[in-house]
């Protein structure tokens, strides 16, 4: 998932006694794993939180085109270029499903877009980091999509029907991207000295930003309890981060690359890897807009939107003319 620090609306988890009858029925459905559908009653705070989370996820797919698009024109073979184009196309498609799913909650895609463009809504912090060499494209597929899948697989069981169905579809494509990304970086790790250097550089730079994708440490994650009760968040940030580290460390070793963190070591007692937490000050800086690419990413999206205004308007006016002509002919 590409949603971090989604603030749950409301005052926190209510006890059954504090709930109204309607709220109790709603919570019972969730506890019984019955999906909530667009026409069902839902608490305003559930709706508002989902809009934030799904909107942030959709925005991430859209902004996520930019760091990958940065290398489409420089892809080293026709096949790599085709794979990258297909991946970016899939991501724009994911954005489309997610906006459509969010629209079932009563918000329009244009409203969400406006909130992205003026900074009221966020996208994942990872896309505020640059892609500097070709191995970054492999690493984005392997690490970034890998981290996203870690979060999205449980979300296939999320309580909101349209979101859950979007996740099922998206997960299939993301797994494919992850395998392609791993294949691309493996080719480089096994390649020339220069290629191996690119692969190591990409891993070193993207490791901590990938760990940050899961959001702040559980002890600082103030919004989780309500979202977990509503099943729009299934696991805690630290659980997923640990799972990601445990999955990825053997892959790094298989590639023959150096671990990006000297403190990574298998802990017999806990049966998991110890590792160094990301620098959370850096994370909060990025969230506040001070990442290496925040300004450029938002400027690029704003420019695309502004430059495209005449196109959207032209097509809309034409559609109206066509509808009017059809009506007149009837």
């Amino acid at each position: 998932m590409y949603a971090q620090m989604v603030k749950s609306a409301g005052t926190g988890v209510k006890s059954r006694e504090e709930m109204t009858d309607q709220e109790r029925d709603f919570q019972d459905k969730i506890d019984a794993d019955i999906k909530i559908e667009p026409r069902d009653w839902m608490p305003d705070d559930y709706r508002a939180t989902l809009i934030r989370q799904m909107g942030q996820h959709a925005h991430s797919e859209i902004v996520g085109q930019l760091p990958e698009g940065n290398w489409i024109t420089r892809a080293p073979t026709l096949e790599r270029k085709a794979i990258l184009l297909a991946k970016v196309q899939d991501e724009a498609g994911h954005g489309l499903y997610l906006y459509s799913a969010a629209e079932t909650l009563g918000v329009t895609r244009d409203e969400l877009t406006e909130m992205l463009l003026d900074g009221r809504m966020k996208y994942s912090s990872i896309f505020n980091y640059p892609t500097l060499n070709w191995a970054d494209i492999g690493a984005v597929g392997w690490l970034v999509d890998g981290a996203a899948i870690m979060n999205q697989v449980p979300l296939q069981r999320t309580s909101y029907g349209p979101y859950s169905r979007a996740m099922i579809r998206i997960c299939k494509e993301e797994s494919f991207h992850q395998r392609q990304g791993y294949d691309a970086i493996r080719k480089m790790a096994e390649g020339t000295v220069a290629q191996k250097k690119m692969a190591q550089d990409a891993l070193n730079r993207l490791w901590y930003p990938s760990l940050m994708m899961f959001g702040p440490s559980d002890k600082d994650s103030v919004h989780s309890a309500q979202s977990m009760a509503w099943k729009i968040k299934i696991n805690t940030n630290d659980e997923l981060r640990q799972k990601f580290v445990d999955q990825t460390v053997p892959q790094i070793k298989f590639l023959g690359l150096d671990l990006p963190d000297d403190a990574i070591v298998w802990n017999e007692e806990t049966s998991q890897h110890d590792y160094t937490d990301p620098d959370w000050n850096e994370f909060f800086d990025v969230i506040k807009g001070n990442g290496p690419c925040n300004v450029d990413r938002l400027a690029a999206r704003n420019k695309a939107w502004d430059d495209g205004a005449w196109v959207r308007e032209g097509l809309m006016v034409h559609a109206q003319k066509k509808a009017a002509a059809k009506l007149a002919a009837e």
Partner: protein
Amino acid sequence: MANVDQQALFQFLLRMGDNTLVLGHRVSEWCGHAPVLEEDIALANTALDLIGQTQFWLGLAGEVEGKGQDADALAFRRDVWDFRNFLICEMPNGDFGQTLMRQFLFDAWASVTLAHLQKSSDERVAGIAAKASKEVAYHLERSSDTIVGLGDGTAESHDRMQAALEYLWPYVGEMFASDDVDANMVAAGIATDPAGLRGEFDAIITRVLTQATLNIPQSTFAHKGGRDGSIHTEHLGHLLTSMQWLQRVYPDASW
């Protein structure tokens, strides 16, 4: 097939593959910057199809040449003078209207050309044309709809589309110029004379541009030099600079 001039066939295949390669590259430059999400998807999809067609055309070109060059070697290791694409394919994207007008004019040419190539005496050529035709039919439908929508939209969108048409019009003629390579292909039954395809092309563009309330320029002047490589625009060198950079800097690497 033994009598076919292999050098002419190689040139013909380079023309086909370089068109899709260079245009596919241009279209891919839009990634993440389109006016609306559906267009981001459509542009990436179009670029993807064109790059896929390139793999077939240049792959076959390398085989015919017989010097061990595969599609990647041809795409990433030749210099400007060796490229055989129409000049229109290398023209910059400009605004979205210019990109779509370029696409529409190319799609109309491609749909007419590929329909004939499906009857080629060379089965390999006919096979690639059959596969590409399906994609191009969709590209043409989409670019036509967009040209009509924007031409017959607001005053601003109309004026931008008219300006795009006038800017690109001098590059249309080259698509229908014939030379010795074409004469060779016609003699071998591999391809149709491009000059003979103009009527079908004009029928398509007249129908769409009329519906789009756009005026087809009267001028018959045509820039040329792309399909024989004699004189490209300044734009192609910059395009190749980014496209070929990794292969040029790390010639020993495989990716």
